């Protein structure tokens, strides 16, 4: 048997059908005899029914329209922010990447030194330290840094740590020869970090007879820095621009991430072609660009042309979409193809992401972490699609 308090506890479950049959019958048994509890149950039942009878209000007339407007504004905001964020990151990190490229290139140079081996080290007394584009003066500075570690101007002087091998080998030489030898020896050792040249290094070690690797490490760094200071401006610029973007018209290069792509299709039935493109778009998970940065909507019609602004998921989806599109259209019916690719290895986004992750780890406050995570999410979002502009026009 249940007492009144217990029965009252069950009232909600009773009316929500959340109790088993046994308890239900016990309750009903109780309220059939207990007036108070019966009244209580009836009152609660009344409340619940009145609440349940409350009908839904209708949406106000302009609700959906207003909401749509606000959403579009929000979407535009995010795109602008995203684009400027992306540009900012690309700018910052491509310059870092350019710096990294320089270092790697110098290592590449070391490999070349051996094969070229035509330069002459100049006389010690005429060391110039200023940067210049002249190869010889580069070597001057380079040799100057080497000579930082040498006490005397005469290479053959065995006071220097770097000379012993020369002396050991007993190579008689006029300065020129010795300097060449030292230069190439240094080249090889400084290239020791570079795995490509390891073989050369080893073979040289044998001929020279024991390199002192510890000392050469720091010396090769000096060498690197000297080279860095002397690298020609032309080379720097060339490499920097290489690291940012490469434009190909050869679509067979698949590995890089495509930022933007465009194509013009020539046909007499523009409407039909537009539908074909849209089908393909949907097939590959693409969507209309709801509004690009100049305010163009997904489809524009101007001067008899149909222009489709589409977003297609990057990577395989985009590549498949692109080749399928061109196959469908037919080789003689399209032109003016272009795409902007970003080399994955030098892609500023990778570095941007890496930097953000580092910041995230070292961040102290939860608020800051949230904002960093939001920025990371934005990068994901940006990386995930390619903007495609397709113009369909009559021949």
């Amino acid at each position, binding site marked *: 048997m249940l007492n009144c308090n217990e029965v009252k506890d069950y009232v909600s479950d009773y009316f929500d059908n959340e109790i088993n049959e046994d308890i239900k019958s016990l309750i009903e048994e109780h309220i059939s005899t207990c007036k108070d509890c019966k009244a209580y149950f009836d009152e*609660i039942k009344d409340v619940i029914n009145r609440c349940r009878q*409350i009908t839904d209000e209708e949406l106000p007339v302009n609700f959906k329209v207003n909401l749509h407007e606000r959403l579009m504004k929000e979407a535009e905001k995010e795109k602008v922010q995203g684009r400027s964020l992306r540009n900012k990151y690309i700018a910052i990190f491509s310059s870092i990447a350019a710096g990294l490229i320089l270092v790697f290139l110098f290592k590449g140079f070391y490999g070349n030194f051996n094969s070229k081996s035509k330069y002459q080290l100049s006389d010690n007394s005429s060391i110039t330290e200023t940067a210049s584009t002249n190869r010889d003066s580069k070597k001057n500075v380079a040799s100057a840094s080497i000579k930082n570690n040498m006490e005397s101007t005469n290479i053959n002087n065995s006071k220097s740590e770097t000379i012993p091998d020369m002396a050991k080998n007993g190579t008689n030489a006029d300065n020129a020869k010795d300097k060449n030898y030292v230069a190439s020896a240094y080249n090889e050792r400084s290239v020791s970090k570079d795995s490509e040249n390891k073989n050369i290094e080893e073979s040289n070690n044998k001929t020279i007879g024991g390199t002192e690797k510890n000392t050469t490490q720091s010396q090769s760094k000096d060498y690197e820095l000297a080279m860095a200071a002397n690298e020609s401006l032309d080379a720097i610029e060339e490499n920097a621009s290489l690291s940012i973007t490469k434009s190909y018209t050869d679509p067979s290069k698949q590995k890089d991430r495509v930022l933007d792509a465009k194509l013009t299709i020539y046909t007499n039935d523009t409407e039909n072609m537009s539908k074909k493109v849209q089908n393909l778009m949907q097939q590959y998970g693409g969507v209309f660009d709801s509004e690009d940065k100049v305010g163009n909507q997904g489809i524009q019609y101007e001067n008899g042309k149909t222009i489709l602004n589409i977003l297609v998921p990057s990577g395989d989806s985009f590549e498949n979409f692109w080749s399928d599109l061109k196959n469908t259209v037919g080789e003689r019916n399209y032109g003016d193809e272009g795409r902007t690719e970003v080399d994955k290895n030098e892609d500023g986004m990778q570095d941007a992401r890496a930097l953000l992750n580092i910041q995230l780890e070292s961040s102290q406050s939860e608020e800051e972490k949230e904002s960093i995570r939001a920025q990371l999410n934005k990068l994901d979002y940006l990386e995930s699609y390619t903007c495609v502009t397709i113009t369909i026009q009559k021949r």
Partner: protein
Amino acid sequence: MSNNLNSLIEQAQKGDVLAFEKLIEDHQKKVYNIAFRFMGNSEDASEVAQEAFIRVYKSIKNFKGKSSFSTWLYRIVVNICMDEMRKRNKQNIVYIDEITQTEKGEYRHEIESGEESPQQQVEINETRNEIYAAINSLSDEHKAVIVLKDIQGFSYEEIAGIMKCPEGTVKSRLNRARSILKDILKKNMELFNKENV
């Protein structure tokens, strides 16, 4: 079905407004009505409901799928409603009757905002007015469970997800809320009877 939902979510996460609107299409009326029950009039309800959808759109990139999409959506709605109520309650509370305090809840009587047109007021059922007023005077937590369970028909499990509390808590809050409503209505009856004797 769920594949379609997932792909809509994915599109919306990329910023696709049309996909987002499809996603929320079935929820718009419910969200508006929850807001309406809290705010008491259509303008404020519109404002709150739209604000909720904007906020969901903004943070959908952070949606990990740990709870269902609708649970997440309604959680945001309820939170915004409660925030708004807190803001407004600080400004204009009018007490008609004395405040009766109990262990857990407060009864307040507030004037209906008076934004209904005379025509509407005539049309409004006395009984409905009464229950609206009664619900309005509940505390925010109690109001929330009544609105979600008895008016909108969510399950205990769903409400627990929306309000981020155990089902047991939902049940006891609901019990309490219903009991308070009963007392309010009873009190109104007594007052009514007294006046008309």
